[in-house]
């Protein structure tokens, strides 16, 4: 079933290399944007001081006068590689440390919401792939999927809060550092639901999965499976479900992260999104750059995992 681990390892290494390459590209783009920005943001960034005129002046002197963009880029890149993302202009805290905790929170949120998305989308997709589109149940479900993902996420969040307050009489404030115990997970449930439903991925997952499934269901080998009285699902699972799901999830991570920014605002979720917003307000470049890098890393990680699943499931490139 599984391919020899050696191959997998090699594959992973190769992929890791590509990931590194892409992240390097990301860092360059980020730098470019910042470099193009009006005012001398970079000195600010490297120093982590208040962006006052004289502070900048001092820094420029400290950096030994005019230093070309490449100089700045590499000095920054080296810092980043050595785990030093600079210190927040606003709080003066080292960004790296903050990012760690905060990005974990965002990770929980994202993973949770993915789970929700799948739990909703997969059954609908499978059902309508088997029963066809016009069936009385699958059609409205699909519609519902569309409708929800066509609503503004934060407004959906407000609705969710309003309902949980006036309907269930509890306040879904996701403040992770609440005194432990007292069903914390319940509080985190609502934001996760909102992101999972609202991030606009559901309808796409449904659409994509439905097509894949019905395509695979028409495959000859599935027919063979039926002909020999074996379970169709068992045979269709890998190509019809596992692969597309991992694929689409990996592809959707950026969108979900985007949605997380909003949901974190609404539900006071101490994640990267909130931090990014604050940073944008304060032009706190070290922070926001760090966040972009970490977010990109998440995305690449997702596709890495997808790639691994793909190779593990699909040995010797049986299909491509």
């Amino acid at each position: 079933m599984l391919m020899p681990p050696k191959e997998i390892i090699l594959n992973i290494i190769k992929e890791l290399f590509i990931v590194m390459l892409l992240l390097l590209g990301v860092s360059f783009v980020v730098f470019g944007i910042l470099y193009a920005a009006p005012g001398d943001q970079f000195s600010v960034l490297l120093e982590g001081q208040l962006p006052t005129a004289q502070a900048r002046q001092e820094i420029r002197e400290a950096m030994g006068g005019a230093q070309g963009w490449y100089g700045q880029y590499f000095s920054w890149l080296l810092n980043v590689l050595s785990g030093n993302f600079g210190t927040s202009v606003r709080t003066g805290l080292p960004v790296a440390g903050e990012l760690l905790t905060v990005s974990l929170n965002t990770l929980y949120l994202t993973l949770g919401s993915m789970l929700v998305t799948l739990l909703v989308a997969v059954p609908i997709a499978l059902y309508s792939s088997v029963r066809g589109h016009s069936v009385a149940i699958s059609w409205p479900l699909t519609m519902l999927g569309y409708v929800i993902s066509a609503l503004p996420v934060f407004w959906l969040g407000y609705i969710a809060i309003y309902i949980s307050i006036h309907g269930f009489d509890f306040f879904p404030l996701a403040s992770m550092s609440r005194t432990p115990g007292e069903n914390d997970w319940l509080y985190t449930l609502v934001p996760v639901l909102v992101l999972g439903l609202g991030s606009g991925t559901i309808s796409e997952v449904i659409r994509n999965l439905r097509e894949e499934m019905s395509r695979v269901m028409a495959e000859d080998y599935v027919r063979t499976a039926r002909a020999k009285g074996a379970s169709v699902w068992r045979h269709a699972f890998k190509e019809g479900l596992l692969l597309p799901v991992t694929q689409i999830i990996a592809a959707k991570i950026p969108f979900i992260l985007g949605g997380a920014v909003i949901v974190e605002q609404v539900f006071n979720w101490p994640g990267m999104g909130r931090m990014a917003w604050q940073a944008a307000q304060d032009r706190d470049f070290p922070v926001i750059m760090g966040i972009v890098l970490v977010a990109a890393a998440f995305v690449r990680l997702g596709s890495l995992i997808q790639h691994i699943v793909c190779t593990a499931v699909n040995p010797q490139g049986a299909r491509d």
Partner: protein
Amino acid sequence: MKQISVILVLALSLLGASFGASQAAESRNAARPTGGTLNYGEYGRPATLDPITSNEMISMRISELLFNGLVGINERQDVVPELAQSWDASKDGRVYTFYLRKDVTWHAREGEAAVPFTANDVVFTYNIMMHPKTITPLKVRFEFIEKAEKVDDYTVRFTLKRPVLNALAKFSFKIIPRHGPKNPLYLTRDDPFVQQPIGTGPYMLKNITADREIVMVANEKYFKGRPSIDQFVTKPFADQNILTQALTFNAIDMIVLVNPRSIAEIQGDKRFILQPYNALSYSFFGYNLRNPLLEDKRVRQAFGYAINRQEMLGSFFNGQGTIISGPFAPGSWAYNLDVQPLSYDPKKAIALLNEAGFKQGTDGIMQKGGKKLELTLMVPIEKESEAVKRVVLAFQNYLKNVGVAVKVEFKEWQSWKEDVFAEHRFDIVFASWVFDDSADISSLFHSAEIGPWKNNFGAYSNPEVDSLIVQSKLTLDHEKRRTINRKLHALLASEAPYTFLWTLTNYSAYHKKVQHVAIHPYKFFSYADEWYIPVTAQKK
């Protein structure tokens, strides 16, 4: 709404003090139950927690819990002993000597013994505050001090450059420990101390969570006696609507500053107390006099007549505030009640504009010498504070009616500050000042304060005003000074470098269970060590 704070020493408060003078610490605590936690919500997240580098209200409030000054100012504006138990001033009023308490210790860092508080710390604080590399809004306010010296471990002497009225009160600035900051010379935001400060105050910083949620615990060794409430927790919120909901759902016990639109909602709720306090602040439209269109004071006056303050205050802040006429907060003794706020009188506005040589163009926009009266109004972006939006939109609307085209431009907070204070790229701003000395407006209108990152961003320069300001600074006699300030008020009102709008009544909302709450108008938490929560209400 975000506030630029001009913090000038001598806090002056009117409301808020809802109880008598504080008795001696010991007897007091006997009466009150200890224990319980008070979670209070703030809109936004505190940056630094030390009293020196911090420059926004959230941090200020927190440092009020963590630190003490040499002296404090009680609700009756008397200077009261804090870290200094007594003091004396020289005849010429240029030398002040403080005799410090001997029973004060700094919060102990874990693993370390509590270090006693001594004169060294005071001198250290002054020096680090004044160091050129230290970035702090305080610096400008202590230029009058010449030097600070340690006499002995428990005696400090301050020498002033010149005698100053009410100088004593200015020594309420917070003292930080010498063993606090890593860098003994100057304090920047890179110093770990600004995030992990230790002080002498009633509460000690326990920890800061990922979300900058700040947990403070009672200081057992507080020299006024252990505070009643065990824990203060600052919960930062990113969404004001949610903040209000959080209160009504007991996720928090107190909101420091209630959003105007939520007041009605909380008023209706029996569980909460809505307490007004006057934060010696006012809102205004400030003009950039570098723009030739705005040079003529008649134009600026016209704007004053063109807008209907009453209506705005009524429909946007459901009347919670007072309309003002001049540069002093109405709470202040310097405020000149004889000067009437400008009335709403569009005709007069148009008349004034015509006087100033502007004629209505075909497009209805006033113009002079082919130059249209078109101005940009710079406003900092704030997610939900549509109170700001409302005011500026209304302003735009009013001015349209008198033929002035105003372009509203929203900018995120930092770049707004840069545009207004550093680059001076604006015609009009909508903002508000917060004072703790409503009598000192020197930094706002004195021509010496023109320049990048200085407070006279509108470049208002008027020798008469300058001299009045200087006089008022130098005069020691309270009555004389009062009359000077009244003049100043009248003059600036007619000169209209700003269009003065109103001071809003701030509201704090808190759960009934919190008792004996007194709120200091500007510092807010000054009396927090005396608040308490009955044992019955202490669960969770």
